[in-house]
């Protein structure tokens, strides 16, 4: 079974993955759960941490992995996405992990390909394993997601991390405050899931927050200037003085890679409130749980 997004996952499935991930957190032991199973990592968009994380997760479970990046594959020779995937599908992998710059690309392929697909980020749509590892990280610091106040700050409009997190957190009763300038915070986001509110003011977003999730800003990659770049850090960058407005035991998260001095100050990124490296670590455990679920013996 494919994992395309959090939106369509039920609570029990999410809980099962998070619980299983806890088993994998403790040690770096190797398993043979996925022995003789082949995982293809197909990355049409640059990624170091997500691809590496999936590779390590697969190897710890004993799977064989092949990683392909778009520049090295035949997509640059004009082969269509369908043909690329059909070709890979014919090599009979047990699952394909896929990252693509186009929203919906894995959904499109899942309609034509029998191989299970794990979405490792599609355009500005979803990044389900990121939301799962974020939830795992929050739950390492809080007993439950219920009733937590989570501020997600930055370019929400173009963030697949934000969308997946909104769906997941809302399903478990957290209150999500989305914050950014209006051009990066479409009003319709408030209807994405229950218990979501929007604000253009970072102080308001952080007030009494249990969790602050900062998003990477890529103003330079957008084809327009949705916000004066010079003003960004001043109005939407997270600095130490902000933390006093949050709960005393607030945790600060970031999906990485971080831009110090852009959306987050070094002092915050390196503070004892930051769990950014825990997120990276949890990425492996969560992806092991996902791979086991998608590729495991019971799935064949």
């Amino acid at each position, binding site marked *: 079974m494919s994992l395309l997004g959090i*939106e369509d996952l039920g609570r029990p499935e999410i809980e099962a993955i998070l619980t299983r991930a806890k088993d994998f957190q403790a040690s770096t032991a190797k398993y043979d759960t996925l022995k003789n199973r082949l995982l293809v990592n197909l990355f049409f968009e640059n990624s170091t941490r997500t691809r590496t994380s999936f590779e390590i997760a697969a190897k710890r479970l004993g799977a064989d992995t092949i990683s392909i990046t778009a520049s090295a594959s035949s997509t640059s020779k004009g082969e*269509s*996405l*369908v043909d690329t995937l059909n070709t890979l599908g014919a090599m009979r992998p047990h699952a394909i992990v896929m990252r*693509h710059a*186009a*929203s*919906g*690309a894995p*959904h*499109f392929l899942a309609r034509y390909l029998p191989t299970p697909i794990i979405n490792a980020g*599609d*355009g*500005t*749509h*979803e990044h389900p394993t990121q939301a799962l590892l974020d939830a795992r990280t929050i739950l390492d610091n809080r007993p439950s997601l219920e009733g937590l106040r989570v501020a997600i700050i930055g370019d929400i*409009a173009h963030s*697949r991390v934000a*969308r997946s997190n909104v769906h997941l957190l809302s399903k478990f009763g957290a209150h999500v405050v989305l914050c950014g300038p209006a051009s990066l915070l*479409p009003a*319709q*986001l408030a*209807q*994405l899931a229950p218990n979501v509110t929007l604000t253009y003011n970072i102080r308001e977003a952080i007030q009494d927050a249990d969790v602050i999730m900062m998003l990477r800003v890529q103003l330079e990659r957008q*084809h327009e200037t949705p916000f004066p770049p010079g003003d960004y850090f001043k109005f939407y960058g997270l600095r130490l003085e902000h933390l006093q407005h949050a709960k005393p035991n607030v945790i600060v998260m970031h999906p990485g890679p971080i831009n110090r001095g852009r959306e987050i100050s070094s002092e915050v990124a390196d503070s004892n409130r930051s769990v950014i490296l825990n997120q990276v670590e949890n990425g492996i455990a969560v992806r092991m749980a996902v791979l086991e679920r998608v590729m495991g013996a019971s799935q064949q």
Partner: protein
Amino acid sequence: MRTWLIKNGRVLDPANGIDAVADVLLMDGKIAAVGPNLTASNALVFDATGMVVAPGFVDMHVHFREPGFEHSESIESGGKAAAAGGFTSVACMPNTMPVNDSATVTTYIVERARRLSPVNVYPIGAITKGSAGEELAAIGSMKQAGIVAISDDGRPVMNARVMRRAMETAKSFGLPLINHCEDLHLSAGGDMHEGFESVRLGLRGIPGCSEDVMVARDILLAEVTGAQYHVAHISARHSVAMVNFAKQRGLKVTSEVTPHHFALADIDMPPYDSNYRMKPPLRGCIDVEGVTEGLVNGAIDAIATDHAPHPGSEKMQEFERCPFGITGLEHAISLSLEKLVHPGLISLGRMVELLTVNPARILNLPKGTLTPGADADVTIFDLDRKWTFDVNKSLSKSRNTPFHGHEFRGGQVATMVNGRFVWRLDGLNLG
């Protein structure tokens, strides 16, 4: 040439105020008579009992892709699809390769159509050279060669001054100017209607206001110039309201809507299904209500398909890379019946008007009526037959429609052009 007597149909001819069971006699390629109990000694009889007999439908907005993109559609294949959908006349947009911006290309299309198309094909000329939006095309020469309107469909003229000059030129030659209203700065990079669905799916939005601002601009220019101005494939509710406003001011402003824009909203799209990708995009439910209201209250004058064929190889891609547009000729009647007439939103007579005399008048064509002496273009359809649309049996060269497998109630039975059957459900007596 055969003489045909179409017996006992419900004859609907809005231009002449006829809605009655009657016979229609066709002789020498012309309508000879309409009335009860007609007889003609040498006539072949088509029994239309229980069917609707209407003037041949006029689709004022199609893309037949010829010259240049014959792998998507040709004048011949497009003409056949039109006939299967009950259309006896179509106006084809100039975004071919080369663009129809000269009398040479216009003449080529006219000649190809005369030889190969079963239905009448009227070319629409480009507003600007290459539809690049800068220098006016040879509008007068194209008019002499046979264009019936000008439009830079798909590549709207962004420069208001150029648009003003285009309107003045169109007016000088008695041509309507048709605009695809889309402010390209507001819509840039967009994939689907900007709304909750685009935000949820992470697709870039094409806001309704990208249409509205250009409709507003054009209406103001139409008032200044006094030109005859037509809004193509209207989709946004504020645009409909502004066309209504223009009409109330007595301007020569008209508009058309496609069947898919009153039949579907953005929420109807299965996730990332490129058969639902077109421009303008499927709008929000409130816009669908808006265009439906426009069909009822008269803001919208015509139903046009914007038949936009694309081969499967171009539609089988990531959503954001697929070209815009869907085919529409073969299910336009059935969608109009399903969404407008069967639910009682408009009368059958109004539907026929939207598909015949209204578009004919906008393009100044001597079509769309059953007036004795008129060309014998006739569409015969039924209201209740259940049938399922199978895209693999489409006469178009392309397969890009969201209505594959859709079950319809009511559809085309036979199509006549110049007194000959060019399409029949039963396949009999063609030619």
